[in-house]
């Protein structure tokens, strides 16, 4: 058994090495105005993904103006000095493309996917709105209603999402990660085109942006086009440093109880403040990532599901997760949804008991080998998804990683040792955590 497994691993290691040679490595350039350019060549289909990332997100919203980064993302589809309101959409559509944008706490990205020979047109329009956005009242006022509706529809209509919002607000005592990206409703209602324009002037510039192009293109051609369209945009001289308010030492665990008539199945969900993945230290984050996989990564074989759902039968499901994608902080999550008749109190105690047992018993090497196999397979599967490759590389660059550091991540995950995993588990600190109960309203 052991021998057979070694053989499989050896075969896979070879496959990954061979692929690394066959697949096109990302190529990195920097324009004179400071804009980073990354190209991933993939010639399997005549399609290209074009993305521009800005190193600004919801955590950079000025105090009292939560939601402004996300609101600006919506407003970027309005008029510029050269494009009418809605023209960006129309041109992308007319060319058969798809496009969208998203805002995270730390970055904002705009992307299009089109036939490869339309790349220049996408660059022309994206470069235009990097500097020429023109916000008229007739544009920004109705769009504010749209984001308020978006908050109503995607967040306030769901007790789970509202609960998540409350938990984050309780976890972060000082850092703006405690505010929702979409914003608090009462602050969103006060946002204006002027506030958005100020934010735009400060943060949207080539030296705060990264261009990622992936697909059926030649890197040299992309660089030439980037010089033509993005090159003439001047760098902003006084780009602000990204110093957001940081967390103080956390001394007291927090508890949140939320009751909502719409809750059909109560559950416990806990967030721990943890280290995040940084260019200087990816290993610690890798240990948390693998720890989450061992505890909750499989509905059948992960530790929490096996003990609580199968052996004891007291959970409908139980979970663990790690997010190390924040610039300043990571979060580790644990949770359990008990079966009917088991109280949240007992469910939480069971969750803690299983975690305590894990701390005593340590890592099951067979389970760790299965997780490692899946990490290795991921290195192969991800080559099939050009957009996802572009997205994960773009996000890493926006967070300050180099291409090399970004590409190391899967290797580091695979190298995580049982000792590192146990050390990460022991560092989970209840003093820096919030435990939430979501339940229905008592009759």
């Amino acid at each position, binding site marked *: 058994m052991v021998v057979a497994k070694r053989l*499989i691993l050896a*075969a*896979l290691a070879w*496959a990954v090495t061979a*692929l690394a040679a066959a697949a096109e490595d990302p190529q990195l350039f920097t324009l004179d105005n400071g804009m980073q350019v990354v190209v991933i060549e993939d*010639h*399997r*289909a*005549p*399609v290209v993904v074009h993305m521009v990332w800005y190193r600004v997100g919801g955590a950079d919203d000025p105090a009292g103006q939560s939601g402004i980064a996300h609101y600006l993302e919506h407003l970027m*589809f309005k008029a510029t000095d050269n494009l009418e309101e*809605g023209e960006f*959409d*129309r041109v992308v*559509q*007319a*060319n*058969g*493309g*798809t496009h969208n944008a998203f805002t995270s706490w730390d970055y904002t990205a705009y992307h299009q*996917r*089109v*036939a490869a020979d339309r790349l220049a047109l996408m660059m022309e329009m994206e470069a235009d709105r990097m500097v020429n956005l023109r916000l008229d009242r007739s544009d920004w006022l*109705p*769009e504010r*209603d*749209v984001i308020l*509706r978006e908050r*109503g*529809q*995607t967040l*306030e*209509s*769901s007790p789970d999402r509202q609960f998540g919002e409350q938990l984050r607000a309780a976890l972060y005592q000082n850092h703006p990660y405690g505010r929702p990206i979409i914003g608090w409703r009462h602050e969103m209602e006060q946002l204006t085109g002027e506030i958005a324009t100020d934010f735009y002037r400060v943060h949207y510039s080539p030296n705060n942006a990264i261009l990622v192009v992936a697909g059926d293109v030649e890197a040299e051609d992309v660089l030439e086009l980037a010089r033509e369209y993005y090159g003439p945009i001047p760098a902003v001289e006084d780009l602000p440093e990204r110093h957001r308010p940081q967390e103080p030492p956390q001394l007291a665990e927090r508890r949140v109880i939320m009751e909502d008539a*719409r*809750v*059909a*199945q109560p559950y416990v969900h806990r967030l721990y403040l943890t280290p995040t993945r940084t260019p200087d230290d990816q290993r610690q984050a890798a240990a948390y990532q693998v720890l989450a996989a061992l505890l909750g990564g499989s509905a*059948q*074989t992960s530790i929490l599901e096996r003990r609580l*759902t*199968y052996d004891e*039968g007291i959970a*409908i*499901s139980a979970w663990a997760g790690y997010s190390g994608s924040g610039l300043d902080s990571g979060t580790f999550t644990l949770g359990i*949804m008990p079966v009917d008749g088991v109280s949240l109190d007992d469910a939480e105690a069971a969750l803690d008991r299983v975690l305590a047992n894990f701390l005593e018993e340590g890592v099951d090497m067979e389970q760790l*080998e*299965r997780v490692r*196999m*899946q990490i*290795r*397979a*991921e290195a*192969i*599967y991800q*080559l*099939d*998804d*050009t*957009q996802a490759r572009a997205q994960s590389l773009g996000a890493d660059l926006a967070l300050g990683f180099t291409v090399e550091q970004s590409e190391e991540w899967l290797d580091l995950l695979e190298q995580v040792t049982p000792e590192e995993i146990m050390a990460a588990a022991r560092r989970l600190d209840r003093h820096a955590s919030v435990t939430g109960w979501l339940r229905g309203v008592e009759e």
Partner: protein
Amino acid sequence: MIRFLSAIALTLGLAMPAGAIDLQEVTSSEGHTAWLVEEHSIPFVSIEIIFTGGASLDPAGRAGAVSLMTSLLSEGAGDYDAQGYAAALEATAGNVSFEAGRDSVSLTIKALSENRDDVIDLAMLALTEPQFGQMSLDRVRAQTIAALERAAQNPNTIAQQTYARLGYAGHPYATPTDGTPATVGSFTLDDILDAHRAAFTSDRVYVGAAGDITPAELSAIVDRVLSALPEADRPLPEYRAFDAGPGVTVVPFPGPQSVIQFGVPGIPADDDDFMEAYLLNEIFGGGGFTSRLMSEIREERGLTYGVYTSLASNQFGDSFVGRMSTGNENAAAAIDLVREQFQWLADGGITQADLERIQTYLTGAYALRFDGNESIARILASMQFQGFPLDYINIRNDLVRAVTLEDIQRVAQRLAHPDQLHFVVVGQPVGLEQDAAAPAE
């Protein structure tokens, strides 16, 4: 349904997603067919198998049986218990997953080339030797009921289910694909075995594959899987015309927003006018940001974050349906706007420019769908399920371009009947009269 008497590995170069991709029809030694795109640059394969029937095979009063049975397939098979099966699959880093839909069950397989045989072994076990133990049934049933109860608190789900109940009374489509807490709570192991016998058959099946596999290797897999299955012995449901009648049905629900689902009878997927109807829908309320409805209701008035319509053309019934969400105070105005826009459609509002714009868009966007082995395998199986010919990928853009404004207006006359619109409103709409009987639970 078009059948091909083709030579083994009939090859067509695809004009759209580059000449780089070749679609072939593979005929196995036992006479089964499968569609394949060979692509050896990345060492894994995706295989998609669609079995016709799905939740539509659930007997009366047994809604959700096929869906629950499908969930139980990963709960142990052959000598493996649930966790043993999952561990074996995880050790291959492959994927074997089943999904029950309205009219089909799909089996999705993904396997690294060096583990392909192991993954197929595990797929075969789940398909032909599931354990279906009472303890698994009880546990998965509890999970399913919990999920159904959560879904029953989601206003979008309430709107969609109410709409189906009103429009397809007495037909399988009136009940949710995943059943209700009552039906799921009543299932015995016999019901599950019966659903298994009904759902997986060797003569109602379509196979698509893409990736690192040869025609001969795929043929062997197809023979192995299909020869292990029985022939179909259950009738499929009769076709039923959607008929909710005109009106407004209000379902009270707490919160500041109303979800509004609306629609009229639709058009069958094999209708000669389907392509025209498809373009009409894309112009009127399709997924783009600048559909007529989005422009009138979101961009002009900021009444909603999104409003979409689609042709819900299932195998045994169809509806031209849309959904939006708005503040309770705006629900009545939003309904009036939707009626106005259907009138606009009926009055020949679509212009030549609208048509040309959507033709350019759809023909350009087509290549974008072929974005990886899994997508391609799924498209290939789905095209066969829907009865498209092997060369459809080549001619599809020509069919889109051939639609004229006259065609569109003719189909608008067929589909756009503002006086037939039924609205289901889930929320606390202000100033909205309910003028249709509330549906029974």
